C-alpha cells in the first residue's frame, strides 16, 4: 500500500503542492454543511474546492489562481432558476394538452433540456476559464454556446445510435471546438488529439463491455417465441410465469445466460473503469496546445488504479464505521418508530435518524471518492504533464473579460456541472 500512497514524482514542469489533509478537512466540513443546508452550501464548497485545486497547481514555477466567488455562483443559479421557471411551466401546460402535443411533451422536454444542458456546459466552461488567472492574465473563451449545443446534441444522437462507437470522434470534435475558442491572454489554444487514435485504444474496452450484452440480445431474439410471450403476459393471472414457460420452453436457459452475460459486462466495466479514465485523461491532455506550447502526458494507468485502491481502503473503513453507528441508529429508530403507542414526535425523530443515516453514508462515500480518486486524478493529470515551447508564455498580452456566471447556474440547475 505504501508504494501506492506515495506521491508520484513529477515528470514535467507542473507541480501539485496541495496537502491532502487540508483537502480532506475542506470536504468533510463541506459535506456536513451540505447536509444541514439541504445543498445550499454547494456554491461555497465548489468555490473552496476550485480555489484549493487552482492555487496549488504550479505551472512552470507559477501557481494558478481562481478568482470566482460563491456569491457569483449563487446569483448565476438564481438567474438560471428564473429562466427555467417559465420553461417548466410551459412543459407543464403542454402536458395538460390532450392531443399530440400533450403526448409528445415528455419527449420535447427531454430534448429541449438536453440541448439547454449542452449550452450550459459551454457557458459554464467560459465562466471557469475567465476566473482562471495565470501570471496576471486571464483565460477566456469565444465562440457560440448555441452552436456548441447543436454540435454536441447531434454528436450525442450519433453516439447513441452507434452504441458508443462514435464517442471518441465526438469527444475529439467537441474538444477541438472548445479549444479553438479558448485563449490564454491573446495566445490561442487548439486541440490536436485524434479521434481515431482514441477509438483504436478504446475499442478493446468497448468490446469487453458491449459484446456480452449484444450476445444476450441475440439469444433472446433467436430463442423466444414473442407471440406466445405477449399472449402469456397479456392474459396475466397468478400463473403468468408458468404460462410464459410453457409457451417458451427454452426461456429459463436464456434468462440464466442473460444474467451471466450481464454480470460479465458489469464486472468488466468496473474493472476497466480506472483504465478508461487514465486513457481519456492521457489522450485529452496530450492534445492540448496554446500557441507553441505543447503538452504531453506521461500518465501511467497503474497510477490511476493506485488511486482506486486508496478509495477502496477508505470506503471499507467508512463502511465499518457506518455499520457500527448505523446499527446503533437502527436500534434507536426502531424503538422510536415501532411499538404500539408511538407519538408523532417519536416517528419524526425515528425517520430523521434513518434518513440522516442514509445521507451521512451517501455523502461519506462521495466525500471519500472526491478526496481520493478525484484529487488523485487532478494531481496525476497535472504532474504527468510535460510542457515544451514554454518561451511563448513570456510575451502573452492580456485579453478577454470576466463572463457572467449564468452558465454555471444553468449547469447546476440542469445537473450538467463539472469541477
Amino acid at each position, binding site marked *: 500500500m505504501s508504494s501506492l500512497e506515495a506521491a508520484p514524482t513529477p515528470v514535467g514542469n507542473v507541480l501539485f*503542492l496541495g496537502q491532502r489533509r487540508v483537502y480532506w478537512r475542506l470536504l468533510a466540513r463541506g459535506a456536513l*454543511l*451540505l*447536509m*444541514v*443546508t*439541504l*445543498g*445550499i*452550501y*454547494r456554491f*461555497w464548497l465548489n468555490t473552496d474546492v476550485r480555489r484549493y485545486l*487552482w*492555487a*496549488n497547481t*504550479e505551472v512552470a514555477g*507559477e*501557481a494558478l*489562481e*481562481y478568482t470566482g466567488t460563491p456569491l457569483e455562483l449563487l446569483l448565476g443559479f438564481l438567474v438560471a*432558476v428564473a429562466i*427555467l*421557471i417559465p420553461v*417548466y411551466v410551459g412543459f*407543464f401546460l403542454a*402536458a*395538460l394538452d*390532450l392531443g399530440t402535443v*400533450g403526448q409528445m411533451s415528455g419527449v420535447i422536454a427531454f430534448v429541449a433540456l438536453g440541448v439547454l444542458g449542452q449550452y450550459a456546459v459551454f457557458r459554464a466552461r467560459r465562466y471557469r476559464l475567465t476566473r482562471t*488567472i*495565470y*501570471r*496576471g*492574465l*486571464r483565460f477566456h473563451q469565444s465562440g457560440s454556446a448555441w452552436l456548441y449545443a447543436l454540435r454536441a446534441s447531434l454528436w450525442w444522437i450519433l453516439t447513441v445510435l452507434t452504441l458508443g462507437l462514435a464517442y471518441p470522434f465526438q469527444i475529439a470534435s467537441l474538444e477541438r471546438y472548445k479549444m479553438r475558442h479558448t485563449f490564454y*491572454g491573446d495566445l490561442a489554444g487548439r486541440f490536436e488529439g485524434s479521434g481515431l487514435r482514441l477509438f483504436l485504444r478504446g475499442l478493446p474496452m468497448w468490446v469487453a463491455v458491449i459484446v456480452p450484452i449484444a450476445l444476450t440480445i441475440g439469444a433472446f431474439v433467436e430463442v423466444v417465441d414473442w407471440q406466445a410471450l405477449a399472449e402469456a403476459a*397479456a392474459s*396475466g*393471472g397468478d400463473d403468468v410465469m408458468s404460462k410464459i414457460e410453457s409457451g417458451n420452453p427454452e426461456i429459463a436457459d436464456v434468462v440464466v445466460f442473460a444474467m451471466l452475460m450481464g454480470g460479465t459486462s458489469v464486472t468488466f466495466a468496473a474493472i476497466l473503469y480506472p483504465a478508461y479514465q487514465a486513457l481519456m485523461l492521457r489522450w485529452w491532455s496530450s492534445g492540448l496546445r496554446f500557441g507553441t506550447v505543447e503538452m504531453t502526458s506521461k500518465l501511467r494507468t497503474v497510477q490511476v488504479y493506485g488511486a482506486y485502491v486508496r478509495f477502496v481502503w477508505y470506503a471499507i473503513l467508512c463502511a465499518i464505521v457506518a455499520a457500527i453507528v448505523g446499527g446503533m441508529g437502527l436500534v434507536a429508530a426502531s424503538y422510536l*418508530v415501532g411499538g404500539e403507542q408511538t407519538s*408523532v414526535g417519536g*416517528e*419524526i425523530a425515528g*425517520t430523521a435518524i434513518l*434518513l440522516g443515516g*442514509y*445521507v*451521512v*453514508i*451517501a*455523502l461519506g*462515500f462521495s466525500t471519500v471518492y472526491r478526496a481520493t480518486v478525484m484529487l488523485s486524478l487532478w494531481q496525476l493529470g497535472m504532474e504527468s504533464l510535460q510542457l515544451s515551447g514554454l518561451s511563448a508564455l*513570456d*510575451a*502573452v*498580452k*492580456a485579453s478577454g473579460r470576466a463572463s457572467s456566471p449564468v452558465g454555471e447556474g444553468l449547469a*447546476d*440547475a440542469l*445537473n450538467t456541472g463539472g469541477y
Partner: protein
Amino acid sequence: MSMESGKGVFFDGRTSARHDVAVTLGATSLVISDHAGNVLANWPYDELEPLTAPDKVLRIGRHGNPVLERLEIFDPDFARAVDIQAVHIDRTGTIQRRQRGNVIGWTLAATVSLLLVAYFGIPALAERIAPLLPVAIERKLGDAVDMQMRAMLDTGKTGAAFECGKAEGEKAGRAALDKMIHRLEAAAGLPGPLRSTVVRKEDANAFALPGGQIYVFRGLIDKAENADEVAGVIAHEIGHVAHLDGTKAVLQAGGLSFLFGMLLGDFVGGGAVVIAARTVLQSSYTREAETDADTYAAVLMNKAGGNVRALATILARIGGATEPGMKILLDHPETKARVAAIEKFANAKSTTPFLDAKEWAALKRICAG
C-alpha cells in the same frame, strides 16, 4: 525584527512577463519598483487584497483593480511584515473564519425559511390560487389526470369492461346511483355538474378528480350495508370537489417539486431527503383536507335528509383493516378520530333513506355484468 523592504515577483496584468522587483514598505503604501528604480506600482495598505496561492507564497493584488496586477512574496519574514501593515490581509485566518461563520449562519437561516415556506406557505398559496383558476382549466386538469387514472385502473386482465353500469343488466344499478347523486347534488349546489363512474376494482375506495369526476370502486358498494353508507362516502368525495382539493393537490405538488427539486436537495443522498420530505409534507396537507371533507359530508348528509351515522359506520368498517404503520405517512386522519368527529353531527331528526329496497338491490348488482 522589522523589515522595510524585500524582494518579490510582479506581474503587471498587461503581459505575462515576470518582473523581479524590489518592494518597499512606505508610510501609507507599498511601493513596487524595478531594479533601475522605476516605480511600477504604488498600492495603499488599505487597498491590498489577499489572493489564493500555495502556502509558501503571499500573493496580493489591489482591491477593485480592473487590471490583474499581482505581487508575489516568497520570503516568509517579509510576508509577515506586509501582513502587519495591510488591513485586509490576515494570514492567521481570523477574518476568513468570521466570514465563514456568517455564511453558515445565513445558509442555515435560508434553509429553515424555505422549509417553513414548504410547510405553511405552499398549502396557503394553493388554497388561494385554486379558487381563482377558471373552470375550463380545472376541467382540463381533471381530464389529464383522468387519462392517467384510467390507464392505471384499467388492467384489462379480467376481460370484462372496466366501467360498471354499461351492460343491460347493470342499467338499473346505474339509475339508482344517479338518483342518489342527484339528491346529494341538489343539496350541495355545486357550480358545475358532477360525473361519476363505478369501476371494477376490489378495494373499498372512492376518489374525486379536479373538475368534478368521482370514481367509486365496486369494493365499496360490496362492503356497504345500506344505501346511505354509499351516499355518505359520495358526499365526502363531493366535499373534495367543492373544496377544489384535487386542484389544490396538483398546485401543492408543483410547489413542492419547485422547492425541493430546484432550490433544495442538490447533493449526494439528497434525493432520499427530497422524497421523504415531500411524502411527509403531502400527507400532512391531505390529512387536513380529509378532515374538512368529512365535515362537509356530514353537513351535506343532514341537508339532504340522509343518515350521517351511515358514513361513520362504513368508515369504521373499512378503515379498521387498512391502517398502515406510521402516523406521519397517513394521508387520512386516524379512523377512530374521524368516526368520533362525524358522530357529533348526527342529529335525532328522522331521515329518509336514499334508495328503497329494490333500488338498493339494483345498485348492489351494478357490476354484475
